[in-house]
């Protein structure tokens, strides 16, 4: 056989196993996807979305733009490895093609330095390109990434990472193999360059140095060993790849395409989830933003570990349930994995126990009163913060709004806490019950002061013809339309973004505008998309009280550091949580509006 040497065998076997396993996985996952998802792919494949996906693959899978945004050095490290290696393969291919070897076996392109030298292909600038120089430059680019990766292991702070992932033994093997690939390649190519004088500035000069150091005899006998070593390390990496964190290298690509075609994860597990789970590179960027790690010291529950446990079938309830689902990690995930939804559908798999007879007692229950086109759903948590309820009463009466009070005297939960606990089928019973109530009373606007309820109303309830508003949006509307008037006071307020309202609901401006209408707004350091979680989220079923309080104290301290007179939030649960740690007053948005109403007795005006 032409163009063959025994040292390419490990490489060829490794590559064969790699592609066989990867394709087998993708085929199985795709076949198991629901028919509706496949139809989306069929519809999207010949549309603009494919081009957009290609663009995203280039910017994310090769250049890693999102990691650059987290930290430039970290971004450079990933890009030099991914993009650099890609270029080595691509330019290696072009080089072989320049010698007329376009359709030769894979190893000829990959080990072209060896084949070029041993088969007497003249080392010269082909097509006016000095390939030896270009390839050396690319190798140097990749090696700089490897050096940074080594440095990151010793001092991750250098790349803005307080904590990095604790890897499994399998990952460590793959990681070590990856680190050795490029130094092994450098040595192999240098030795060949020394013997055949075909190196560039890097391999050429290193080769000359080695020749002088080792002498010609040793150099000649070391050369095949070096190539065997290089090929073997490649083999180890390739075989480990589909079973380790490095599965992300390929999996991010189909994920980007499928996502662009509109496929999403939902509250029930589906085959598409495999693409998300295995696209996780376990980079550990999700660890630092996690307050369970930084404040509560839970070290094994972060998204990276959750996805790992789920992928290898060792997910426990204690890991699945110990998450605030605040979305801070999802916000930073460089692969854009829908972490909250995956956590949710894992809980569904672990916990959901359909029972048609459960919540039979809901039938016929209607403790609501009043009548009006506007319905107000306080939500369970608002019933525990009666000042919010009283403030809303005063605002409604000042605006002359006729209100249907859905649950002032107690009502049925919105269903989101059950859904977050994984009991998705039971949660439906509550949603059906409340939907029927809203229909029965003929409301056209539904106002809630609880972002948890708001989220479930918007996402899981089917309420055509009913406008769903958070009270911050409703209050802003009342102010804009002049239906209520407020006095602008001298107090300064800082605002705590509730996770369910901000990151998960996209409502950032309305509460801020309302605050500015009654006082001065001072933003905390971590705000909007980066806002901290209060720590008492109903999504966390495992956290204990002590740790909830620790997080609350940290958050309150962070808010108080603004120097504002008072803390304002727009979620009853956040209010309760932050109050535990704060020495300043904590108000719901409605309270400060009610306290500043014109022509109203300033009975409970917040005093600075």
């Amino acid at each position: 056989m032409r163009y063959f040497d025994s040292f390419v065998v490990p490489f060829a076997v490794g590559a064969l196993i790699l592609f066989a396993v990867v394709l087998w996985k993708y085929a199985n996952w795709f076949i198991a996807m629901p028919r509706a998802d496949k139809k989306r792919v069929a519809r999207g494949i010949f549309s603009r979305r494919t081009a957009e996906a290609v663009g995203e693959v280039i910017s994310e899978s090769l250049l890693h733009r999102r990691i650059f945004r987290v930290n430039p050095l970290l971004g450079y490290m990933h890009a030099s490895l991914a993009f650099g290696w890609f270029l080595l393969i691509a330019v290696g291919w072009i080089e072989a093609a320049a010698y007329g070897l376009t359709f030769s076996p894979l190893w000829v392109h990959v080990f072209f330095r060896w084949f070029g030298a041993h088969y007497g292909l003249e080392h010269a600038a082909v097509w006016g390109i000095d390939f030896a120089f270009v390839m050396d430059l690319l190798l140097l680019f990749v090696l700089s990434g490897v050096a940074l990766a080594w440095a990151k292991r010793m001092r991750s702070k250098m790349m803005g990472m307080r904590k990095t992932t604790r890897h499994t033994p399998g990952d460590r093997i793959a990681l070590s193999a990856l680190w050795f690939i490029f130094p092994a390649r450098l040595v192999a190519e240098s030795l060949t360059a020394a013997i055949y004088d075909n190196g560039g500035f890097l391999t050429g000069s290193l080769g000359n140095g080695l020749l002088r150091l080792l002498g010609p005899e040793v150099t000649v006998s070391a050369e095949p060993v070096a190539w065997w070593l290089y090929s073997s390390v490649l083999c180890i990496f390739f075989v480990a790849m589909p079973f380790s964190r490095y599965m992300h290298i390929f999996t991010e690509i189909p994920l980007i395409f499928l996502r662009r075609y509109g496929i999403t994860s939902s509250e029930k597990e589906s085959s598409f989830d495999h693409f998300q789970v295995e696209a996780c590179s376990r980079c550990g960027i999700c660890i630092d933003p996690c307050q369970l790690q930084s404040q509560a010291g839970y070290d094994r529950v972060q998204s990276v570990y959750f996805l790992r446990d789920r992928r290898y079938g060792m997910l426990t309830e204690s890991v699945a349930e110990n998450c605030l689902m605040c979305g801070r990690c999802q916000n930073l995930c460089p692969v854009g994995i829908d972490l909250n939804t995956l956590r949710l559908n894992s809980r569904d798999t672990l916990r959901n126990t359909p029972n048609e007879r459960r919540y039979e007692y809901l039938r016929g229950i209607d403790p609501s009163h009043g009548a009006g086109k506007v319905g107000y759903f306080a939500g369970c948590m608002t019933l525990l913060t009666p000042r919010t309820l009283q403030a809303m009463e005063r605002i409604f009466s000042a605006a002359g709004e006729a209100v249907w009070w859905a649950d002032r005297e107690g009502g049925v939960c919105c269903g989101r806490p059950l859904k977050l606990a994984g009991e998705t089928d039971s949660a439906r019973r509550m949603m059906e019950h409340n939907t029927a109530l809203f229909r029965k009373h003929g409301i056209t606007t539904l106002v809630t002061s609880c972002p948890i309820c708001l989220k479930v109303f918007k996402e899981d309830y089917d309420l055509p013809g009913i406008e769903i508003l958070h009270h911050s949006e409703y209050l802003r509307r009342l102010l804009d339309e002049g239906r209520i008037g407020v006095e602008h006071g001298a107090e300064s307020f800082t605002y705590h973004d509730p996770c369910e309202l901000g990151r998960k609901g996209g409502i950032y401006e309305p509460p801020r505008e309302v605050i500015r209408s009654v006082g001065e707004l001072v933003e905390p350091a971590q705000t909007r998309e980066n806002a901290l979680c209060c720590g008492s989220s109903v999504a966390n079923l495992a956290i204990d009280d002590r740790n909830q309080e620790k997080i609350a104290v940290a958050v309150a301290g962070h808010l108080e550091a603004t120097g504002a007179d008072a803390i304002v939030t727009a979620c009853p649960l956040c209010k309760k949580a932050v109050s535990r740690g704060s020495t300043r007053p904590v108000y719901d948005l409605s309270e400060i509006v009610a306290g500043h109403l014109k022509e109203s007795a300033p009975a409970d005006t917040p005093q600075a």
Partner: protein
Amino acid sequence: MAINWGFNIARPRAVDMDANDLSITRRIMAQMPEFQACIACGSCTATCTAGNLTSFNFRRVHTLVRRGEYEGAYEEMGKCMLCGKCRLSCPRGINTRGLVMLIKRELEDK
């Protein structure tokens, strides 16, 4: 002749801690040691969303479970909506929502 007094009195009943099988209770306690801190004050029950609508009494059920009386507890716990108000009102800081789920999980396998 039975007279309707408008209320009735619970039949006298003793909880026999020796006769009761406490194995499930022990498992629950081991997984949530903070449950031992419960003083049965009833705040959880006073704020309970489900208790407001039905006869569901969380304090009664978890107290009975603590004493090894499991009958009907699973079905009763099924009435809970997991809204989490009880957790906010608990003066002992017990993760009551987690407790509901734990009791259900342990009794399911009984």
